[in-house]
């Protein structure tokens, strides 16, 4: 009789645990999907502390726009959200993409000089975690990081630190640092969500320790508004999603690797998005996309020639 009771308790515990994990995963997905919809976005960045007294802080950066965030792929193990900016009600700019992957082991980490290192994390390290992979406007890599979604005291947030290239707002304006160590915190709020950042602007050189140039606070608010405000983006995505599905497929083949991926900034003085724009306009084939992407990949041992700037 005792054995029966013990077995029953064990099974009950297992069942409760199983239900709890499943429930947590669903709760995580709900939080991730809470970032979808139409938002009024404000971008705010300010430099804070520098270890060197002679560092001259740069001016604050502020900007704003409407942004449409659409779940373009969804399963219990993956949610992919495409962000699209809407300017002046009609102008649409394909913005960043964030992919969320459950207990994912394949990650990429930014090194420097437009190089990302692809690696596999140990299974036990990613248990219960979600990897956030963030991509550029052309679906090239930006940064990734794994952490646990936290749901406590009525708060729902995910936070992680990872290295990335310079942000777009400083990419062509600064050369006094070459790596942004990003402290990302994404919290779902009553109004929408907040992307808070505690960033370190780093000078990285081969064989030397990283040097901190200055720290930066980022505070980007996403306040949910009527979906109608983002109609232009919804329409744009309907017209262009097939092309970008092919582009993601092409990139996925490139990302299926261990080790380094180094990309050229430009080919014939033109960045990648300028090559993709005409292909997008004619909904070009995956083969045509592959041909363009290949031009931007620096092969192992190939010199970083003058095309790369």
């Amino acid at each position, binding site marked *: 009789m005792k054995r029966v009771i013990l077995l029953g308790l064990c099974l009950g515990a297992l069942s409760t645990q199983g239900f709890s994990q499943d429930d947590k995963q669903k709760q995580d997905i709900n939080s991730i999907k809470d970032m979808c919809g139409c938002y009024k976005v404000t971008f705010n960045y300010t430099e804070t502390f520098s270890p060197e*007294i*002679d560092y*001259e*802080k740069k001016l604050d950066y502020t900007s704003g726009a409407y942004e449409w965030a659409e779940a373009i792929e969804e399963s219990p193990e993956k949610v992919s959200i495409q962000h699209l900016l809407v300017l002046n009600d009609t102008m649409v700019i394909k913005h960043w993409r964030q992919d969320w992957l459950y207990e994912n082991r394949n990650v990429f980490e930014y090194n420097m000089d437009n190089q990302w290192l692809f690696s596999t994390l140990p299974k036990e390290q990613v248990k219960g975690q979600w990897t956030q992979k963030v991509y550029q406007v052309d679906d090239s890599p930006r940064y990734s990081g794994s952490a646990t979604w936290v749901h406590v005291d009525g708060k729902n947030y995910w936070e992680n630190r990872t290295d990335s290239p310079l942000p777009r707002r400083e990419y062509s304006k600064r050369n006094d640092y070459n790596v942004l160590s990003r402290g990302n915190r994404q919290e779902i709020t009553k109004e929408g969500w907040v992307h808070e950042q505690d960033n370190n602007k780093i000078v990285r050189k081969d064989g030397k320790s990283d040097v901190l140039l200055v720290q930066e606070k980022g505070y980007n608010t996403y306040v949910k508004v009527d979906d109608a405000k983002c109609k232009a983006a919804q329409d744009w995505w309907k017209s262009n999603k097939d092309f970008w599905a092919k582009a993601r497929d092409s990139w996925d083949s490139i990302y299926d690797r261990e080790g380094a991926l180094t990309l050229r900034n430009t080919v014939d003085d033109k960045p990648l998005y300028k090559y993709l724009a005409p292909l997008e306009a004619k909904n070009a084939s995956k083969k045509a996309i592959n041909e363009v992407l290949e031009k931007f990949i620096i092969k192992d041992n190939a010199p970083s020639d003058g095309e790369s700037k």
Partner: protein
Amino acid sequence: MLPVMAKVSRLSFGWTALFLGAALLSSFGNWEQDPKLQEKVDSAILQAFEIEGYIPIPIELDAIDQSAGTPKARSFKIMGNNVLLGYGYVGEAPSMKRVFDYIVLFNPDLRIKKTKALIYREDHGRQIGSERWLQQFISMTVNDTPNYGENIDAISGATISAKSMTKAVGKVLINFKKYKEQEPLN
């Protein structure tokens, strides 16, 4: 010394100018042997004058920082493409427990172009690096006198260093006034 020379070479001044610059620099003394300070001096000058290279030509000034017991003070003309861009003074001044390095940069008419704290060696009083505070010295001439708490705002929590910086800039102005009286400005 090397960072300046590297930048100078980009200006294609020619071997004569390089040789002259190297000879003059080697006569400068101690602080060129501090690569960190040298880098910060270069950076301050290049940014302030928005140039890619320069040659410093030493000039004689009274030893402003002798009271602080330092031999590191240096004053110099700043030359670029054989044109006088301005003047510079790199010195040390006392903070609460240690000393900090600073630079005062002048336009050719000896009006202050910029002042900066370059290296600060303690946690207390770092507010003197604030650009908002330092810009109070900009445009002062050798006939002006910065007075802490009067035409230069006081800084709560950094009184010693802020007073020290104000006093140091005042001394630099007095010494450059003497220099102006002795040397016709180019």
